[in-house]
């Protein structure tokens, strides 16, 4: 039966995994946004060959479940890295790559495909007339990007980027398959010690929902603060 006495003790242990999870999620978010932006740029500029490659990448990473990508990275990445490094003449044991690095890379690979879509949508929402106006005022393309394009595109993308932040948080929970301890894995470990499974999982559910609520609130505030008042 559901035991409420164990909740406090368990939640203290499970809360200990929150900073690690948030740090991994943030790293993944930054990396995948960078990669996704590059992909979106390739599609926006219609660069010939790269464009088809990006399309193929997106098809592959959207069609394959994330668990499978994580397992593929787990078994495939270290040998590949070892091969690359040794052929470049660097002496480094890639088989000792920590599992969390592999997890972050795998999730980045998956989420980048979705980030590319988000950023492409935000770029398409940008009014071309504004860039014409900026050029006619003698802006260089760097200035155009920094002062006109980026502020608007970033603002348009905020709601979708929040969603993908939550997707990343959830995806990291698959890391327990390759022994990375995040909130979910910690709740499983805690439960395995004292057999109060449901209690530990309910705590994890509450933690995830609270984090989602906080992230959404921050994003909403940010969007409101940045929006140009007319």
């Amino acid at each position, binding site marked *: *039966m*559901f035991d409420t006495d164990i909740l406090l003790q368990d939640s203290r242990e499970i809360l200990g995994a929150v900073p690690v999870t948030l740090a991994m999620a943030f790293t993944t978010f930054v990396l995948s946004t960078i990669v996704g932006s590059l992909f979106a740029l390739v599609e926006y500029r219609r660069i010939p060959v790269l464009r088809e490659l990006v399309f193929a990448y997106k098809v*592959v990473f*959207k*069609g*394959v*479940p*994330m*668990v*499978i*990508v994580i*397992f*593929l990275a787990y*078994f*495939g990445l270290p040998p590949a890295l070892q091969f690359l490094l040794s052929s470049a003449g660097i002496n480094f044991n890639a088989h000792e790559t920590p599992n969390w690095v592999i997890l972050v890379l795998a999730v980045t690979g998956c989420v980048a495909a979705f980030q590319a879509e988000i950023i492409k949508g935000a770029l398409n929402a940008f009014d071309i007339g504004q860039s014409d106006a900026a050029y006619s005022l003698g802006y260089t393309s760097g200035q155009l990007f920094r002062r006109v394009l980026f502020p608007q595109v970033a603002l348009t993308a905020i709601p979708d980027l929040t969603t993908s932040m*939550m997707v990343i*948080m*959830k*995806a990291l*929970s*698959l890391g*327990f*398959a390759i022994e990375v301890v995040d909130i*979910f894995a910690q*709740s*499983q470990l805690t439960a395995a010690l004292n057999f109060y*499974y*449901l209690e530990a*999982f*309910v705590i*994890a*559910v509450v933690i*995830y*929902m609270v*984090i*989602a*609520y906080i992230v959404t609130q921050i994003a909403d505030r940010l969007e409101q603060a940045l929006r140009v008042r007319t």
Partner: protein
Amino acid sequence: MDVSAMIPELLSALPLTLAITFTAIIAGFCLALLATTLRVRRVPVISHLADLYVSYARSVPVVLQLFVAFYGLPLLVVLFGSEDFFSPTIAAMVALSFYHGGYLSEVMRPAYLAVDRGQHDAADSLGYTFRQKIARVVGPQAVHFALPGYGNSIIYLIHNVALVMYIGAADVMATAHLIMQRDYNQYQFETYLVLAVIYALMCLIAWLIVRFFELRSPMQAPEATTKAQIKNALIASA
């Protein structure tokens, strides 16, 4: 490493995966309709419960939802005094139905709200009841807005069905693990590649079906309603 011997064995577990998927699609659709109706109509307490349900389904990892269902449902059933009948498969079906329902509700609600306000008002002024308004005016238009999101949610569902092996359902992933262990874990990478292809094909088929309906929708392309034209458009968009 004989891939051709592995594929029939993997495919023999496909019916279970498909059964879980289709149960979740159908039950999830009903749940989503219910949740969306409750959220749109703004009934005081019940709407908040529906909101809570949707945020549970959307913000908690699917593995965790599976485990909660697996350990929580038997308790719930015992509480009502009946026999515990939950196998991992049934728990997976229930958990994924709830996940899919919550996710889909967040596709349906924006689609409902995206229908022009004037259409709602016009239907109301003509004296349509809520049900008539949905069936004859708002529904057909909302379906058009919802289809792309619906396709995505089906694809996510297929992805997440790959997780049911963690609560012990014998689906394609679990079979793959058996095969790998029988080969002394020598060919893990190759086996996962085969799995990736199988899942990618399933997603492709689902996407093509949804895309077909998207293009057939009269609001999308009024001229492209004959079969040959749809086929051409499908190829062009792929």
